[in-house]
């Protein structure tokens, strides 16, 4: 992974059409601004992971097999 040090007010470019501006930095959080073409999807990673996991969770399951694997929680 590339690791860079940037200060508030600075920015960086990813490719030629995505710009990330570092607007505010505190000890707890960083506020960033992103300029990108409309075709680029920007998602908080935890939302992206939740979408994927929800899609997996919506798949049908064999209930008998599942109960075998978790029955000892009862």
């Amino acid at each position, binding site marked *: 992974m590339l690791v860079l040090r940037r200060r508030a007010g600075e920015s960086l470019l990813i490719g030629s059409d995505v710009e990330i501006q570092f607007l505010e930095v505190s000890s707890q959080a960083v506020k960033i601004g992103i300029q990108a073409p409309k075709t680029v999807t920007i998602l*908080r990673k*935890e*939302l992206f*992971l*939740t*979408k*994927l*996991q*929800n*899609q*997996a*969770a*919506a*798949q*049908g*399951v064999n*209930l008998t097999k*599942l*109960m075998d*694997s*978790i*029955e*000892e*929680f*009862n």
Partner: protein
Amino acid sequence: MPLLATKYFGAVSFDPADAYRFPQGLPAFELEKSFVLLDVASKRPLVFLQSAGSPDLCFLALPISVIDPEYELSISFEDLSLLELDTNRQPIIGTEVLVLALIAIQEGRAPQANLMAPLVINPQNRIGLQAIRSDSRYSFEHPVTSRSKQEELC
């Protein structure tokens, strides 16, 4: 009582007033705004979150305290507001809110519970949402294994 078409249990009678409202749907299922919790005695502690509008959509879930009795909530201000809960503190699991972890099953692996984004339901107003944490304290793919198996591994 009207009938609800379910994915796993055929048609079951239900009271529409028992449905939970998810104003935002769930991530990847944003249009699904009404769910019914099916608590089937023979399948406990599993609960089934059946979509009221789509018979083919039914999530499996476990009460979060079954997976981690020490689980600590971190619900955002926005999510607390949507649930119409006190925004100054985290609600108490079990008494003030019902908290469930969705379970994903993939062939050949232990079932996984999403502890990073639990479902939080306010039983007072029957509003629910998936409260995505922004910290990385809990995994979105926490393996669910029985306690005895965990002990064997230790």
